[in-house]
């Protein structure tokens, strides 16, 4: 497709960028009170005070410095603050794994911890036979070949640039890798460029994620840092943080799984390092 910016000028209305920016600048001439930092009267414990200094964002005006040196401190001077308030996450790996496992249970994610690759293989075979997988999709040719050998009775396809989305919609499952797993929230983080596009993880009824323990990060902060360190300022155009299978509570606030996306999310976490 050739972008044709000239025709756009004739067909599309011009927009009000300058008008809006002008109104914003005019409005911002009067500074707003920081109502959120206002001292709340608390007669019940008169000594109580919010630790206000730490809560204000110590922003640096130049965002350019982040691109020069991607150290944690340079990127985000306020990181440690967020962590102070968010749900705590254990520092050690076993702690993170058990947090992830317990959150998976609440989320109704099918979480499997496999000490070795061969155990993971048999878990996959078990899922395939239980659900009678005829056709499944994965994100790369390499995975397609490996999975074909593991699951000989299943037709394994991949989301190459010309794949058929109607066929993907009728597939039994998708198996993908991920960028990372997040212990604090029990989430899987995928990107379109690394994990097979935008639809692979959401269109088939069962999404299976294979990950290694080294991919398990503590919290969202770490997950974003990981992305920024891996890709620099060139982040993938589509990133999704998946937390449990698709769900809805729109009818009487009663939880139902599989509203539009996958009814089932399986995460197989492998403790062993990959075979050479």
């Amino acid at each position, binding site marked *: 497709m050739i972008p044709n910016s000239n025709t756009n000028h004739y067909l599309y*209305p011009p927009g*009000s960028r300058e008008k809006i920016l002008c109104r914003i600048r005019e409005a911002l001439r*009067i500074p707003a009170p920081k109502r959120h930092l206002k001292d709340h009267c608390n007669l019940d414990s008169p000594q109580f005070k919010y630790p206000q200094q730490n809560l204000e964002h110590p922003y640096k005006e130049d965002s350019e410095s982040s691109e020069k040196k991607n150290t944690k401190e340079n990127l985000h001077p306020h990181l440690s603050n967020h962590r102070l308030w*968010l749900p705590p996450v254990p520092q050690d790996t076993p702690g993170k794994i058990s947090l992830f496992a317990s959150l998976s249970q609440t989320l109704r994610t099918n979480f499997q911890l496999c000490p070795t690759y061969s155990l993971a293989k048999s878990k996959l075979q078990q899922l395939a036979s239980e659900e009678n997988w005829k056709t499944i999709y994965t994100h790369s040719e390499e995975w397609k070949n490996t999975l074909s050998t593991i699951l000989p009775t299943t037709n394994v396809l991949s989301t190459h640039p010309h794949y058929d989305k109607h066929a993907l*919609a009728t597939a039994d499952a998708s198996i993908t890798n991920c960028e990372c797993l997040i212990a604090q929230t029990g989430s899987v983080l995928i990107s379109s460029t690394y994990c097979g596009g935008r639809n692979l993880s959401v269109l088939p009824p069962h999404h299976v994620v294979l990950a290694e323990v080294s991919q398990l990060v503590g919290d969202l902060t770490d997950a974003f840092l990981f992305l920024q360190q891996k890709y620099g300022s060139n982040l993938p155009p589509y990133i999704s*943080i998946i937390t449990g299978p698709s769900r809805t509570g729109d009818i*009487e*606030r009663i939880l139902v799984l599989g509203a539009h996306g996958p009814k089932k999310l399986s995460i197989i976490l492998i403790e062993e390092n990959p075979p050479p």
Partner: protein
Amino acid sequence: MSTNPQAPQAPPHDPSSNKQNPEKLFHTSANHITRNLHHRSIIQKALGGYYLKRDEQKARFSSWQNARTAAASIKYEAINHLDHYLVQFADKIEANGAKVFWASDGSEALQYILAVARQNNVRRIIKSKTMTGEEIHLSQTLANEGYEVVESDLGEFIVQLRQEPPYHIVFPAMHLTRGEISSLFQQKLGSPPSNEPEELTMIARAALRQKYLQADMGISGANFAIAETGMISITENEGNARLSVGLPPIHVVILGIEKIVPRLQDLALLLPMLATAGAGQHLTGYNTLISGPRKTNEPDGPEQMHVILLDNRRTTLLADAEQRDALHCIRCGACLNVCPIFKNIGGHSYGTTYQGPIGSVITPHLRDLQTWKHLSAASSLCGACSETCPVKIDLHHHLLHNRRNAYHLKPNPLEKILWFAFNLFMQSPFLYNLAAPLNRLFTPFFSLLRKTPLDPIRNWTKTRDFPQPPPKSFKELWRQRKKNPPSFQS
């Protein structure tokens, strides 16, 4: 059997299509619904589970209160440097291939979307939930122009079938029972009756599946726009937004200019807070960050992405420095869920896009103060909204500010005289002491008028008993006591 939901033409509750005075409509609807005990119990039951889960998630935070202040600081920073961050966001996302359109008002936004649709021969449109879209009547406009518009969020799908606006900004169909939804589906989709939420959900799933694949255009809103990386962030549970923006060849996203946050890392705090406050989850099912249309190293994705930044009088609110923090809102709906007014009058009584306390605060700015000031008056100022707001918007005080501003510009003559006299009497102990005993003098007389239109306090006594004034006021008792001081030995 038809799986093609008809788009609403003109919702019965939509005030813009109704010539009646919004204040009168509000009174009529509120009076009607507050007496509906069935409605009261549905809402109480639906929110009961929410409170439990929300408190459970809040307790997981090391400090929910400090997280609120930190989140508010992020939004304060963004809103008070809005020009800077908007330009940064727009430049970044345009560099990634998206087209950004700055819309001054709803009609500019609609014209642009229609132009995109016409230019690309669009016929079918799939929509995921966007309150900004509701604000400019996007679905109706597109449907009136002959496009097939399908709402994909389950709650929105249901209210679209019923041709009514969303009841709640986060739970659009929370006022309906499974029975009502079942008969709606039977009637509109020809599906068999069911009493199971799961079965009903699967009926909607089946009805919508093909719509995603057939659609020529997907429209979504956005929960955040990240200036640093030029990304939009969409929060959802069902996966319908991911399907709506990932499958069709065109993605149109419409968002208010206040959705901006400075940095990607800000989401590490805001996403868990949105989930906790909004639905009592530790993180919402899908949080999707998108920074442009399909790139060469991607197997799929839309060919075009259009980002519409909508002002629609948000700059009017921005200009009110006192209430500027109302633009911090992340549309979690927490203030609706705790508001005793909302729970009793229901979402439709407001007649606004945004219901509950936040709607009562911002609607006078987004539309017109004098026409919508009654929403700010209809509050006991209990402050439950401000207490729960994850970004610490001073909601109930802003209701007070709206009242002040409205009556300062255009006082109600009768009230003005009443309060002027009140003020006069209260400044003078002499007049107060003269007037106060009249209360005891007249009350027995008033009680004779009970249940007649002559009762001056009938607005109270129609539904409540009025206390009998005691024989002596405190002032009199005090004077008496000073004359004969009691002895204390007890």
